[in-house]
């Protein structure tokens, strides 16, 4: 490995889980408070970028497991899927639909097409940024 990166290694390993959790938090609270898919995707991308600083391009690719372009495509598919319930019930495209799943402990898991759309944005942003970063790595060789 490159000259001493002990401190960066430890830092990346300690900070990355926090960043990933924060990104999921931002994604999920996006419907009725500030936050949402875009900023959540940015934070997730920053976690992976920090990882790339510490461990290099190959390790980041391995960590992602899929090619970032596939993430981007999956995000777009999620966005498309969020339009289907409205179309099936004969309303205007992208009309929001809500379902509530009862859970033990007297609480509900709120699912909605808005959330599906937000997950799509999240994946698309993450995929785009990681495509940039990995593309730049390949240019530099």
């Amino acid at each position, binding site marked *: 490995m*490159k000259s001493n990166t002990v401190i*960066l290694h430890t830092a990346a390993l300690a*900070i990355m889980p926090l*960043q990933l959790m*924060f990104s999921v938090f*931002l994604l999920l609270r996006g419907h009725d*408070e*500030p*936050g949402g898919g875009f*900023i959540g995707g*940015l*934070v997730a991308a*920053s976690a992976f*970028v*920090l990882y*790339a*600083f510490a461990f*290099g*391009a190959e390790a980041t690719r391995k960590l992602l497991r899929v090619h970032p372009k596939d993430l981007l495509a999956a995000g777009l598919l999620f966005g498309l899927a969020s339009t289907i319930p409205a179309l099936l019930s004969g309303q205007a495209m992208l009309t929001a639909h809500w379902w509530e799943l009862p859970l033990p402990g007297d609480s509900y898991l709120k699912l909605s097409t808005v959330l599906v759309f937000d997950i799509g944005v999240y994946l698309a942003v993450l995929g785009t940024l990681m495509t940039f*970063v990995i593309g*730049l*790595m390949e240019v*530099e060789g």
Partner: protein
Amino acid sequence: MMLTALYITIAMVTLAALLNVYRLIKGPDAPDRILALDTLYINAIALIILLGITLKTRMYLESALLIAVMGFVGTVAMAKYLKRGSVIE
């Protein structure tokens, strides 16, 4: 009394930010400028928290956390660029 303390603190942090801008412009070297930027974003976090206290809302704390996350990655990226001439090896 708390309000007075709040305004004095806001004035002090703003002054601190101005001093950082002075260092940012004067340099003399690239690491100095990055250090000034790093301190500037920490001051921005302080200002956002103070704004939240003034407006009695916790809505802005997420943005402060966001600046902390992104600012750190930015500082590391710039320092790595100076050291290697490239950000990712």
